[in-house]
């Protein structure tokens, strides 16, 4: 049997905020036929799996639950006549814009004129976090916890330790408590809290769960089910064991970029996501990438905004209006961990929106962009942390093929004393 071929104008891989945003925008630009392919049985990506509130603060100025947020995006897509095909796993994307996908209904080869990759990100598995020890049952990521509690109504464990203090880690505390389980500690390797303080106050503090800052996970203990976790406190204090039956390795999101990589799209060594220009155009003409695939986890609103911009650009590409002109790279300046996009194509389509992450936490910092040492963009003073991007808009006026663009941070590295101060307040 030959694989049936379906011709579409645009194929979007992933029905999370970025993918749905891109598809909806494409339809609003009257592109024709747009399909969104997603392996899950419901649209909405990660928010759809999340019951807690706090989604859509930027977009809807209201803290929606993940499900409500996903629902709004899905309804907008349906209203714009986007075809969302669920339970459909994309197996490959080719440079010739063919997308092969399979579902219980069969294989389909989509011949597209533009492809948008929005495959999101995932949490780093345990082996990459240098946590040695036994390999028992009872080790999870937060995404698995969400699915077990949400889809299966099943408790992952009764006494949990959360590793990592990003927002997903903090929210896992509340999740466990609401499901009837205990949380013994949140363990954070760095000397400061990574998630929003508001999240700490909402999800952790009410349950009097200690946050152990500056504690490194040494090993997991337990031959069959987890029996405990050993952590090394800061300053060389003796390793201590926290008895528990569940360890959740949270956060440390990495782009799910295998599909892009296998298509032959160059990846950025800093982000491990596809290399894109300001139009979210990858190195392969007609293939765009957006959302958390580009940089790891940002808020859903950031992914949605990127998706919409990528949809806009893909529509322009289909109309033959997107310049394929020369591009200049954005060079790393002081304290830069990553920047998306990594390069800009020289055209007159307006300012460039950058997401910039620092390599260390900085206080009273500004993000600074320069063209040949002339300032072309800067933010107001803010505090920045490595796992969350700062936004900066840069004008391309005066940039030509010989310009050197640089983005970096100016500010003071947050001192350990400042970090330790917050640590003192956190550990109840």
């Amino acid at each position, binding site marked *: 049997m030959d694989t049936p071929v379906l011709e579409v104008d645009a194929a979007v891989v992933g029905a999370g905020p970025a993918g749905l945003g891109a598809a909806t925008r494409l339809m609003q630009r009257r592109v024709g036929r747009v399909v969104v392919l997603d392996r899950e049985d419901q649209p909405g990506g990660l928010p759809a799996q999340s019951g807690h509130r706090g989604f859509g603060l930027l977009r809807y100025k209201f803290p929606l639950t993940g499900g409500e947020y996903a629902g709004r995006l899905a309804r907008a897509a349906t209203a714009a006549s986007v075809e969302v095909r669920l339970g459909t796993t994309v197996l490959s994307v080719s440079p010739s814009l063919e997308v092969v996908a399979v579902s219980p209904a069969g294989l389909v080869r989509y011949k597209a004129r533009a492809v948008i990759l929005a495959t999101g990100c995932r949490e780093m598995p345990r082996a990459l976090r240098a946590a040695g020890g036994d390999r028992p049952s009872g080790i999870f990521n937060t995404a698995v916890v969400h699915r077990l509690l949400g889809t*299966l109504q099943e*408790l992952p464990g009764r006494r949990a330790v959360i590793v990592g203090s990003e927002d997903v880690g903090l929210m896992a505390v509340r999740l466990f408590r609401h499901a009837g389980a205990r949380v013994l500690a949140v363990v954070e390797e760095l000397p400061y809290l990574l998630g929003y303080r508001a999240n700490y106050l909402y999800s952790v503090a009410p349950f009097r769960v200690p946050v152990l800052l500056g504690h490194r996970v040494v090993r997991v203990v337990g031959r069959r089910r987890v029996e405990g976790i050993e952590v090394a406190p800061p300053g060389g204090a003796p390793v201590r064991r926290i008895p528990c039956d569940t360890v959740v390795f949270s956060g440390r999101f990495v782009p799910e970029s295998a599909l892009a990589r296998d298509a032959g799209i160059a990846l950025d060594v800093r982000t491990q996501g596809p290399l894109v220009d300001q139009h979210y155009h990858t190195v392969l003409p007609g293939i765009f990438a957006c959302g958390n695939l580009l940089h790891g986890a940002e808020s859903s609103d950031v992914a949605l905004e990127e998706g919409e911009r990528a949809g806009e650009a893909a529509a322009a590409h289909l109309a033959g209006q997107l310049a394929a002109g020369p591009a200049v790279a954005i060079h790393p300046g002081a304290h830069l961990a990553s920047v998306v996009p990594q390069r800009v194509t020289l055209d007159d389509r307006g300012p460039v929106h950058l997401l910039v992450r620092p390599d260390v936490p900085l206080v009273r910092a500004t993000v600074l962009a320069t063209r040949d040492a002339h300032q072309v963009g800067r933010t107001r003073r803010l505090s920045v942390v490595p796992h969350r991007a700062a936004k900066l808009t840069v004008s391309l006026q005066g940039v030509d093929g010989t310009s050197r663009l640089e983005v970096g941070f100016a500010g003071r590295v947050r001192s350990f004393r400042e970090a330790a101060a917050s640590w003192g307040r956190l550990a109840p």
Partner: protein
Amino acid sequence: MGHETAESYDVVLVGAGVVGCAVARDLARYRLRVAVVDREVDVGDGTSKANSGIVHTGFDAKPGTTEARLVARGWTLWAEAAPALQVTLEPVGALLVALTAEQHAELDALRENGRRNGITDLAMVSRDELLHLEPAISRDVRGALHIPGESIIDPFAAVVAQAEHAAVNGVRFFLGEDVRGIQAVRDGYLVATPWRELRTRWLVDAAGLWSDAIAQLAHRDDVRVTPRKGEFVIFDKPAGRLIRHILLPVPTKISKGILVAPTVFGNVLMGPTAVDGTDKTDLSVTPQGLRTVMEAGLRMIPGLRRETVVTTYAGERAVGNLSDYRLEVDGAAHLVIISGIRSTGLTAAMAIAEQVVGAMRDAGLPAEPNRGYRPDRPARSWRPGQTRPCYDPDRVAQDPRYGRVVCLCETVSEGEIVEALHGPLAAHTLDGVKKRTWATAGRCQAYFCTAALLAIVARERGTDVSAVTKRGPGTHATAGPAGARRKAP
């Protein structure tokens, strides 16, 4: 339970590792009642579960030993049996790499050692040839010895396939039952597990790390086994482009050393360490062990430094108190002891079986042919090296479950998972499904698919999700329905 109610067998094997399953499969050719007992709930869950996945030629074994002879014979038997057993075996060949002048000087002796073991196709490879054969190898190399016969194998299927083949030919498996006692009775033994007593004429101790304990139950106090731990690192599939052969270091007096090898699944494997210990159940990975592995591996393939690690694991080899294999067939006592197989059991298993079963027959084990013998193992829908069913439009059309991809990283469909959960030696744990389908073994390490997988296992086994385990009692994947206790203790 009294003797009257005991189930009666001609042969009871203790240990369902690669060696025990090979012996069981060999015995299944005869009209015999054979049972295999193992403390783990799946076959191959001891030493057989964590190894390098290599079928050795035996070129480096000590000439004249039983091990050297059986490794070489085992290599041949694997090459013959792999197709019918549907076990993926790829003769990629090995390069034994010299990184220093001293090591380079040793290659000739290793080649001569191989020749004495009957491996005559070894060839010297110059530095230039080596750099051509392995473009990503360290520029420090001086040369290498090419061993064309060294092969990579699916080490999980190597056990499951033999066990399944034995099972379809009538061998009974009692898994998850540890042997609590062995009693010598008239004309045989009574083997007691927590659930049953098995009366048998012959007892085969193939219990690997615990073969000393089983031997002791049979009143043999001279068998000793100590564990030797090996830690491994597995790299994500893109690293597969960096190597083509199994890359072996020049062995030292202490160990074969840390190798870098492709796997049949498409990953790259690095390891193992060799650390003698006392705790046979210690499968923990350690920072120093992993550092040792990485340093040694990166000396050969520096480019792996930039590749992503998928997982790490450790295994325990069974080191005996003889310098060679212990293969004893006591015809008078009807007792067989197979012990001290260390790290070569995967290669030698079928040869060990051949020798042991031959000796049992010589000692009077009746050997009437099994009339209903099935030469092949039941067909599987996928094995490593083949395209997954989800890529095949016909198969998805025949069974829509092949169109539902559960494990994204390895593109394992619901159809393959359901298949693993049924049949003569069905998986019923998460590790069992992983070993048979490679689901959850990919780059995300079960981030995307755990919940879906649990639901499928529970549904197919007809249990609650809370009853699903990773590898048997005490390894429950979850802790019961959520919200059952609103107030945490």
